[in-house]
């Protein structure tokens, strides 16, 4: 009775189960039986049970209870049991299991067994799942086996040594002498193992690499033997003599010849010979040729040989077999950085491969095409890439889109072309672009002032056709908001004129606002755009007011906040509206992430919150500009002051604070308070009026950094609310205001308000600070400014 019969019965039973549930039932019964049998000691069918368990494991059912049984089987003297035991060890055990330690001793004994097949079992298992400790223990044994006379054992020992070297790098040294001597073997299996071992050793340590360079002539000799020798039935695969060994040796030669003139010279002839003599009609021949080409291109070969190699690759590219084309493109990718011109010659074929039906070939062609884009071929390549983008498989879209953007940014021949390309990508693959695309595009558009009219017309038309691509819609809304007046003027040199009425524009924006396809960010863009249009159009301001007020009760907090602020802008601060919503200044190239350095600390790479913050930050630029003007009016124009805003504070604080000062309550600075006494004490009172006191504590944190703590208190009889502080410092000083501890001051000094201001003064200029205090007391808004010229504690 062969050991497999009970296994076959079980397999038959499992296969006859008609449903998954039935199969589970059968397997559970079998596993229970197996478990029971494991518990009994010596019975004849142990190997059957373990074999059954392994089958069950392959189907995916838990089999960990077989681990100890594997250990027991390995220790058994019988070959059949050992065989199954080792197989089970390879499948069920790994270094994380405790049971794996127990087999170390068995393996050690089996490595010295008289029967070569038992030895081979042990070697095989060690190579598959040997842990570092096991490897360390058994390495000397393996080295001994490498020197044995049995070639079957030698070849297995060689590969086992490779595994050991991978696990424990230091043991590589141990195997170097044996590896060297193995090169003189005749048996191809042993040679193969030896070459793999030497490859691994050379890759791990440069000193070993140096030593093995001396072996290059031997390797060349072996290769010559393989290439020139006649038909040898043992090793022949489709006409090529042992292609696997040839490929391995070529790879080793590549590693040895890299960056080394002498070794490369020794190989030149051989490589030329292989390249010309190998038959390339079959896959095997191509495998060898391919490896040769890679080797030629990697070592310091002579130029004639390199040309030959690239030509071979070119021939591969035109081959009908897709596999060969794929391989050719993979290797061209490796050399595109070093031999760029050579690869450029094949650009046409590569671009044709973009249209191939095979997804793998397309992927390779895309990578290669993106690497081949240069200033001279940008227009034609981009055309091809855009065609590809419209029909490419979804998993490649994001990669293609970002590749196109990079290429366009680096080699754009004209701004208009650049904008057109980006718009094209957004219309075809808008859902797959990265999030920085929107702010980058906006910045690009702002900087191209001559094309504003053209851009906004194009975007408007794109918006009318399709509002599902979010990045496109966002950019379009932003542009319509900014340049709506240009859109309404109607005429534009670059595109045909189209009459657009105010109603049309507002309709378009409303559709975006109400569409279920728009994300909250997009809606935010649209709402802001609608608001901006209120200063650029003349007739439909009421319509805008009504749109904005509707969103004042929107569930989305972001939209609600914006709508409420805009409402306030309409109602209380109508006189400010024009100034607040005027055209944005040109954004500085690098400042999209910093905007004057004092705003959001979070990196802009964050997607959704990043985008929202962008919008938020863009807006306060306006009132900040406002504040700057007002501060100038106050007569402090000797040094230009840099306005600030609170970090994390909402834009509303900005908007409400800024307009308040326009009422004209500009106090005479110097008369408004007592001059700051130059007291050595760190706490200084900088402002005291109407019962509100503001004190300042200054501490030096580092070479150029210091923190200022402002404390406010209220000694009047009534509560103070909406207390805000703003600070301005000379231009070269960087300022960051942290969030205040509270925003109201109860009467009679019930609680104090503190706010931390972090300053960085790298140029060590004379530090001055202007602080604006504003609060509401007994229903009236009070605002005051105070200048601090000297900081105690500095």
């Amino acid at each position, binding site marked *: 009775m062969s050991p497999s019969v009970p*296994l076959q019965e079980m397999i038959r039973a499992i296969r006859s189960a008609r449903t998954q549930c039935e199969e589970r039932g059968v397997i559970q019964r079998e596993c229970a039986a197996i478990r029971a049998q494991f518990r009994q000691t010596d019975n004849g069918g142990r190997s059957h049970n373990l074999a059954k368990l392994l*089958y069950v494991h392959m189907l995916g059912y838990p089999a960990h209870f077989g681990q100890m049984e594997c250990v027991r089987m390995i220790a058994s003297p019988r070959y059949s049991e050992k065989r199954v035991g080792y197989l089970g060890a390879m499948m069920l055990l790994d270094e994380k299991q405790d049971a794996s330690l127990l087999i170390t001793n068995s393996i050690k004994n089996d490595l010295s067994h008289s029967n070569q097949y038992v030895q081979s079992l042990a070697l095989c298992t060690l190579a598959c799942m040997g842990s570092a400790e096991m490897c360390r223990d058994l390495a000397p044994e393996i080295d001994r086996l490498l020197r044995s006379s049995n070639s079957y054992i030698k070849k297995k020992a060689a590969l086992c040594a490779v595994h050991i070297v991978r696990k424990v790098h230091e043991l590589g040294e141990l195997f170097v002498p044996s590896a060297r001597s193995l090169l003189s073997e005749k048996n191809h299996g042993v040679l193969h193992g030896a070459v793999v071992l030497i490859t691994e050793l050379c890759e791990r340590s440069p000193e070993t690499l140096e030593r093995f360079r001396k072996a290059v002539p031997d390797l060349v000799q072996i290769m010559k033997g393989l290439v020139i020798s006649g038909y040898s039935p043992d090793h022949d695969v489709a006409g090529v003599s042992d292609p696997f060994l040839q490929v391995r040796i070529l790879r080793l030669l590549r590693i040895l010849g890299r960056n080394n003139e002498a070794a490369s010279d020794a190989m030149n002839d051989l490589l030329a010979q292989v390249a010309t003599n190998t038959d390339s009609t079959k896959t095997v021949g191509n495998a060898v040729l391919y490896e040769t080409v890679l080797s030629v291109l990697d070592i310091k070969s002579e130029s004639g040989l390199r040309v030959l190699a690239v030509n071979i690759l070119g021939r591969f590219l035109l081959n009908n077999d897709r596999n060969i084309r794929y391989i050719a493109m993979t290797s061209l990718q490796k050399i595109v950085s070093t031999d760029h011109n050579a690869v450029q010659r094949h650009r046409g074929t590569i671009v044709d491969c973009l249209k191939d039906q095979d997804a793998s070939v397309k992927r390779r062609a895309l990578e290669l095409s993106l690497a081949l884009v240069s200033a001279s071929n940008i227009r034609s390549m981009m055309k091809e890439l855009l065609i590809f983008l419209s029909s490419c498989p979804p998993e490649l879209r994001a990669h293609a889109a970002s590749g196109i953007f990079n290429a366009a940014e680096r080699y754009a021949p004209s701004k208009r072309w650049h904008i057109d390309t980006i718009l094209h990508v957004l219309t075809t693959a808008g859902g797959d672009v990265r999030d920085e695309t929107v702010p980058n595009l906006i910045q690009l558009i702002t900087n191209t002032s001559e094309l504003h009219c053209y851009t906004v017309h194009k975007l408007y038309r794109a918006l009318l056709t399709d509002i599902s691509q979010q990045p496109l819609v966002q950019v379009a809304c932003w542009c319509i908001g900014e340049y709506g007046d240009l859109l309404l003027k109607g005429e534009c040199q670059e595109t045909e004129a189209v009459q657009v009425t105010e109603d049309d524009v507002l309709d378009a924006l409303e559709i975006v606002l109400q569409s279920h396809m728009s994300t909250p960010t997009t809606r935010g863009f649209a709402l802001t755009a609608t608001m901006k249009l209120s200063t650029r159009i003349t007739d439909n301001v009421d319509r805008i007011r009504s749109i904005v007020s509707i969103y004042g009760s929107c569930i989305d907090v972001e939209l609600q906040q914006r709508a409420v602020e805009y409402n306030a802008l309409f109602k209380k601060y109508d006189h400010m509206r024009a100034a607040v919503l005027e055209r944005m200044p040109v954004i500085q190239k690098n400042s999209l992430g910093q905007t004057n350095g004092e705003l959001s600390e979070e990196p802009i790479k964050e997607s959704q919150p990043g985008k929202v913050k962008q919008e938020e930050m863009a807006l306060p630029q306006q009132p900040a500009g406002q504040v700057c003007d007002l501060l100038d009016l106050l007569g402090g124009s000797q040094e230009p002051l840099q306005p600030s805003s609170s970090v994390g504070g909402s834009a509303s604080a900005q908007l409400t604070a800024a307009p308040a000062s326009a009422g004209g309550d500009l106090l005479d600075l110097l008369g408004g308070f007592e001059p700051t006494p130059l007291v050595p004490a760190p706490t200084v009172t900088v402002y005291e009026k109407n019962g509100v006191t503001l004190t300042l504590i200054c501490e030096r944190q580092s070479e150029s950094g210091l923190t200022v703590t402002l404390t406010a208190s209220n000694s009047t009889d009534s509560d103070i609310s909406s207390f805000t502080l703003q600070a301005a410092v000379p231009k070269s000083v960087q300022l960051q205001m942290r969030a205040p501890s509270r925003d109201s001051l109860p009467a009679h000094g019930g609680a104090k308000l503190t706010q931390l201001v972090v300053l960085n003064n790298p140029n060590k200029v004379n530090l001055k600070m202007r602080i604006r205090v504003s609060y509401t007391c007994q229903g009236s808004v009070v605002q005051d400014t105070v200048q601090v010229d000297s900081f105690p504690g500095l």
Partner: protein
Amino acid sequence: MIKAILIFNNHGKPRLSKFYEHYNEDTEQQIIRETFHLVSKRDENVCNFLEGGLLIGGLDYKLIYRHYATLYFVFCVDSSESELGILDLIQVFVETLDKCFENVCELDLIFHVDKVHHILAEMVMGGMVLETNMNEIITQVDAQNKMEKSETFIFQSTRQDR
């Protein structure tokens, strides 16, 4: 290095799964499912190389597969292996199975999984190619099978003696 060797049929049922790196059972099954999903979508006349498996590897890994009648033979390898070489290796493997089982078909693989494992162990060891000469492999496998048979024979005869 070869990371895994999988054989499954046109419906995704695994016929052989050999992993040269350790994964737990759930992950192994997931890998088999994902590989089947990727490979079954392929057309008949496209190339035999696939990239884009998420579970079993990162950027460095490819799937090299061949489709024979009802079975897919899939090797998951990294960039240190020659792709065309592995393609040939699959061919050698199938031819060896054919010789060992006499016109091998799927049923042979189902009922003699352990035998297939032993043949594979003669060809690939520890994720590296060991022997590619078909005759050599078959000789060794036959010798080992003979040894096993002789043992059971002895065992049975001792039993009968009692």
